[in-house]
């Protein structure tokens, strides 16, 4: 992104030093986590990262900070339920990637599946349900908003945020990382592992922010019926994948056997469990989305959340 004339932040100038302090604290805390993870990994508590990632840490920390700033300066705050949805969704994503749960997920297929469903389905689902766009946008510094509103960012979003493209990506990304040789590589190569996690989070956010957009159609680009169709459409491929993995007669993902399992359970038991985890919870979440959309239609959706503007994600 090129440097552009930046719109001034709406925050009063007295806040500048406070925000500098906050960014400093975020940086310092990140550096502390990085240092311990790198040089004294045995000292890291269980709530700390098993493998520290600057990307994952900064994304979670900045989203929290900007949302909190938005809450502090918003005229009408989102309800406590929506605030809770945001923080719980974010915590689920961050917690399943940047705590020692990640170690467990690297060493048991069923837990790997649970992790991937938390970061691709449940976490983004709750985040999207909280409709955080306005609040985050209020708390975000001007230059970040300028980047998010730039022509390049809009072009990418225009391309991806179409019902067919987003649905195909939602199913495709989930399938892609379960292709056995690709899964094997991702579980051994730490760089690919990070790419996998990032792609799952972004893909989940794209899909659920579109499907659960609380605004009626004129500001929202797609009708509720279309979006209910998206959620409905991914249910069949989700079922198919869950069934294939659960019922596969042989071991598909040998990396867990080779590198060792978290506790001694049989490879096929682990795979059956992992298949069920990939089968039932995503299906329930998608069904919940369909129900929520139906409910919105029934209680006349144009009265819903008039305060929410176009989601910028």
């Amino acid at each position: 992104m090129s440097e552009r004339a930046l719109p001034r932040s709406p925050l009063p100038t007295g806040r500048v030093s406070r925000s500098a302090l906050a960014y400093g604290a975020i940086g310092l805390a990140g550096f502390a986590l990085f240092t311990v993870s790198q040089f004294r990994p045995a000292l890291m508590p269980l709530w700390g990262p098993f493998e520290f990632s600057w990307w994952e840490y900064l994304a979670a920390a900045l989203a929290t900070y900007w949302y909190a700033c938005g809450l502090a300066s918003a005229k009408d705050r989102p309800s406590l339920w929506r605030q809770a949805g945001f923080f719980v969704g974010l915590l689920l994503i961050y917690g399943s990637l940047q705590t020692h749960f990640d170690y467990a997920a690297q060493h048991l297929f069923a837990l790997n599946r649970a992790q991937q469903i938390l970061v691709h389905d449940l976490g983004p689902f709750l985040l999207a349900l909280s409709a955080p766009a306005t609040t985050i946008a209020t708390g975000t510094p001007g230059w970040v908003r300028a980047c998010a509103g730039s022509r390049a960012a809009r072009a990418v979003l225009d391309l991806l945020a179409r019902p067919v493209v987003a649905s195909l990506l939602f199913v495709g990304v989930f399938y892609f990382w379960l292709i056995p040789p690709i899964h094997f590589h991702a579980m051994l190569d730490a760089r690919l592992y990070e790419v996998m996690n990032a792609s799952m989070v972004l893909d989940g956010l794209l899909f659920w922010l579109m499907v659960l957009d609380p605004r009626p159609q004129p500001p929202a680009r797609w009708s509720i019926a279309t979006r209910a169709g998206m959620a409905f459409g991914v249910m069949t491929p989700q079922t198919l994948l869950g069934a294939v993995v659960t019922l596969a007669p042989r071991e598909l993902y040998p990396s867990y056997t080779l590198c060792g399992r978290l506790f001694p359970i049989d490879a096929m038991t682990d795979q059956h469990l992992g298949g069920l985890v990939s089968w039932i919870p995503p299906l329930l979440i998608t069904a919940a989305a369909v129900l929520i959309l139906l409910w919105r239609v029934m209680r006349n959706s144009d009265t819903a959340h008039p305060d929410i503007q176009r989601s910028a994600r």
Partner: protein
Amino acid sequence: MMLTRRGLLRLGGALGAACLAGCGDRQRWHALDIAGTLPPLQFQMTRARDQRLVSERDYRGQIVALYFGYTFCPDLCPTTLANLASVLQGMGNEAQRVAVLFVTVDPERDTLPVLASYVRDFAPEIDGLRGTPDQLTALARRYRVAFSVTPRTNDRPYEVDHSSAIYVFDGARSARLLVASLSTSAPDLEGTRSDLARLAHEQAPSGILAWLRDAV
């Protein structure tokens, strides 16, 4: 039409065979080829035999077989180490280019003398390594190894879980193979021997790239 289809099939078959032959000049390994996935060998631990702090630099130019276990291990570790020892024996003089590193995942009980006398019984090429908790965690994390030690309680015996595969690195420290069969009841001794010999015969990289790699 039938003929054309058959012709096409034949053409396809010939092309497939040519491709296989083309890719086949790199003949297949007996163990699992993991080139390009795991990072190059790097560690710091204390070597049991001379109680020295060693790192990957002490094994420069050697084929390294890295294995995680513990001396109280009832079945997996002795089977694997005994099989490795017989593979090394089958290699004759070439075994000198191979170093087996046995990393204990139970440093509490595996003191350096215990570890040294344990590995000495299997083969002289096997080095026992013991790390601090930080050194062990870093190495296990680097190679995605699961390990856990659950001290004995009243109703549970002392339990240690660990990975069963052997990680093989070439003379340039790159991760190359995962050997999984040596802990099983059908160990591929001959396959492992020929894989290790083949790695030992590979031309070590030379020139500026190798120099850079060693400097890092």
